[in-house]
């Protein structure tokens, strides 16, 4: 008997491995064997499923039941209940944040239900370490078609017509890039893949490389045929060991099977592919810097033109595409440009993967058609803001992007509409922030990153980001000057217009957008020495409103510096001299009786708080 009646797809992406997949796998195999089910139930280790926060996750087919946070202790009862007796095990199912009812089927869980999978088409469905499983999902069919039935011009035309744009950040039309390179005459050309993925919080490329490495390879071979290249490199950061391992395994398997190397599939086309490990510098995600790094030199950008399509790696014509872009090529070749355009908008076709994180209930990777409103991603897929708090802003595009406020939540996610808000789609990092976030602090956080990662070649970026950061630091410490906001705006615009590469040209975005939408916060930091979110320690006074305090003692117990006094059931008080402004009491209070006042505030705050409450609705488009 070798009939397999169920497949257990256990996630073995980086996130789930860290939360315990290896041990769960051993326990599961052992228990299945003990129950005599090991021949009829097959365990498959998949790549990243995208729902990393609740890992390890496992999908059971054909039942389509989805389990999360699977632990070794759960295994015996899970195997007995579900796999032996056919009763799906509720304890490990997804539960809606408020209702607490278990949702068994993956397709019914809101996080998955609203997604459309093209890039992530094989996530959780194949074992990325077995080339046969990729082939069984129509893998390498598109490559076969491109190599046997299509000319270079045909391929370029389909990709051009599809409207596919580079998913790495800039959104340059992929077909156009291929067109330029295919028309340049040269004995050697290079087809390159950008797997550097430097934006903090973005992990869609890692996920694709881990879960579906062959889709990247297939896209590269098709691109190589289109531009006439016979050598290629995948540039991956060394911090992605699992992605590197799976890519290497995939390259080895493909080479052994004649799907890479000499005479691919007997068609006479040659393409040799190698992995190059990057050291994880943010600037090496920029194409000219990446190519210098590949040449073994220090990764620094150079002015363009000449563009890489004419003079790229070792001054030969080169095309560099992002991982997510390349993973879309095979389905476009198979299904045509019209199919691709059936989702998305006129100028932003197809789907985009976002790394949704921050203060939302469901965090993870989400793939959605371009053009859907931000609100849908945050509320329908993300399940809204955690702990019932208020939405404040969403940061799109990582350190190069910007913060978008509530008033712009209906903005459709397209390259043009997002740029109009001052942010960028970028590589798809999406950090949601609630009303406990200080926007000046947020801008400072991203500037710390870009100032640190600036390669130092051009002055506007090297010096400019440092000055921006110093000014932001001063403002958060209470040393801000009235003229600072204008200086930040002027300097930010100067850095954008004079920097050499994308790093400097986008680094001021977090500052400019937070000033654009949250100028009042900058002003209250500078004028009133008041961080209303209570994050900047020098700019707060914590104060208990005696009218609201029930004397429950929660704050008193939580305070690490014993700064709170009071009898049970009597209003408590904070001793200001002892308070370290850590905000712990504010989080602990269930009655909202702790108020955040300006630094050094004394006297009756009722007037101030009344004004603050009235001003709450005014946030948003002030300029």
């Amino acid at each position, binding site marked *: *008997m*070798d*009939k*397999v*009646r*169920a*497949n257990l*797809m256990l996630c073995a992406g980086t996130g789930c491995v860290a939360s315990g997949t290896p041990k769960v796998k051993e326990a599961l195999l052992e228990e299945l064997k003990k129950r005599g089910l090991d021949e*009829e139930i*097959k365990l498959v280790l998949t790549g990243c499923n995208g729902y990393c926060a609740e890992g390890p996750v496992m999908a059971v*087919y*054909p*039942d389509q039941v989805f389990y999360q946070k699977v632990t070794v202790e759960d295994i015996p009862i899970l195997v007995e209940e579900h*796999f*032996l*007796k*056919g*009763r799906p095990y509720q304890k490990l199912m997804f539960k809606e944040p408020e209702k607490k009812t278990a949702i068994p089927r993956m397709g019914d869980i809101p996080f998955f239900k609203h997604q459309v999978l093209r890039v992530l088409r094989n996530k959780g*469905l194949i074992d990325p370490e077995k*080339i*046969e*499983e990729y*082939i*069984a*999902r*129509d*893998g*390498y*069919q598109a490559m*076969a078609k491109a190599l*046997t039935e299509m000319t270079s011009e045909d391929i370029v035309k389909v990709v051009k017509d599809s409207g596919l744009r580079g998913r790495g950040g800039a959104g340059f039309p992929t077909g156009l890039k291929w067109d330029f390179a295919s028309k340049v005459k040269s004995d050697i050309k290079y087809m390159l893949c950008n797997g550097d993925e430097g934006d903090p919080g973005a992990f869609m490329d890692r996920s694709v490389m881990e879960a579906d490495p062959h889709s990247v390879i297939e896209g590269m071979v098709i691109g190589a045929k289109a531009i006439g290249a016979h050598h290629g490199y995948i540039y991956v950061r060394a911090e992605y060991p699992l992605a590197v391992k799976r890519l290497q395994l995939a390259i080895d*398997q493909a080479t*052994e*099977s*004649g*799907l890479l190397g000499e005479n691919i*599939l*007997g068609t006479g086309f040659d393409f040799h592919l190698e992995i190059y490990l990057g050291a994880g510098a943010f600037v090496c995600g920029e194409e000219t810097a990446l190519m210098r790094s590949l040449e073994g030199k220090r990764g620094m950008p150079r002015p363009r033109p000449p563009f890489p399509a004419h003079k790229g790696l070792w001054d030969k014509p080169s095309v560099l595409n992002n991982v997510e872009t390349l993973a879309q090529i095979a389905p476009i070749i198979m299904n045509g440009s019209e199919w691709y355009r059936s989702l998305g908008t006129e100028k932003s076709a197809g789907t985009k993967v976002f790394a949704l994180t921050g203060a939302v209930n469901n965090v993870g990777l989400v793939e959605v058609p371009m053009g859907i409103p931000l609100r849908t991603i945050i509320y329908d897929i993300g399940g809204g803001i955690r702990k019932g708090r208020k939405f404040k802003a969403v940061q799109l595009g990582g350190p190069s992007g910007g913060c978008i406020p509530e008033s712009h939540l209906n903005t459709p996610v397209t390259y043009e509409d997002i740029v109009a808000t001052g942010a960028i789609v970028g590589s798809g990092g999406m950090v949601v922030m609630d009303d406990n976030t200080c926007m000046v602090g947020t801008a400072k956080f991203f500037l710390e990153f870009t100032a640190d990662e600036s390669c130092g070649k051009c002055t506007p970026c090297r010096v400019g980001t440092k000055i921006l950061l110093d000014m932001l630091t001063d403002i958060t410490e209470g040393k801000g000057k009235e003229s600072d906001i204008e200086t930040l705006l002027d300097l930010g615009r100067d850095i954008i217009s004079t920097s050499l590469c994308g790093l400097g040209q986008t680094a001021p975005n977090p500052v400019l957008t937070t000033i654009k939408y949250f100028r009042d916060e900058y002003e209250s930091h500078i004028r009133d020495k008041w961080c209303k979110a209570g994050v900047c320690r020098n700019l707060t006074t914590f104060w208990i409103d005696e009218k609201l305090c029930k004397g429950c003692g929660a704050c008193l117990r939580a305070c690490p510096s014993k700064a709170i006094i009071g009898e049970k059931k009597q209003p408590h008080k904070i001793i200001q001299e002892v308070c370290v402004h850590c905000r712990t009491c504010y989080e602990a209070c269930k009655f909202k009786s702790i108020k955040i006042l300006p630094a050094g505030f004394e006297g009756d705050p009722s007037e101030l708080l009344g004004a603050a409450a009235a001003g709450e609705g005014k946030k948003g488009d002030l300029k």
Partner: protein
Amino acid sequence: MPRLTIDDLKKIKEKHRADFTLREGGYRAKVTVHMGTCGIAAGARAVMTALMDEITKANITDVIVTTSGCAGLCAKEPLATVEIMNHPPVKYCDLNDEKMREIFREHIMAGNPVEKYALVAGCESTY
């Protein structure tokens, strides 16, 4: 692995069809063997083994087997529900190894429900 041709790609796909029928759906028939405590005690395991043996021997990939808990009719266990796509599901009762094999041949393969073993037809679909 030897070097592949375009034909080989299709062959590999065929070879893995059974697994992907489970994962992607698109099966022709689904058999649910009721494996509650009552079912197991009455011999559901032998029924399931017989069914899987028949599927293996017939070398087909479009029939899937799944389990469920007690169907609420413990006296008539072992029970199994056969669902051919777009046909009313049929529940069989008091099964054993031989009866299951007969149902496989007659109902699942030939499309004729085996009335003598059937409890009810047209109960709720599960797909």
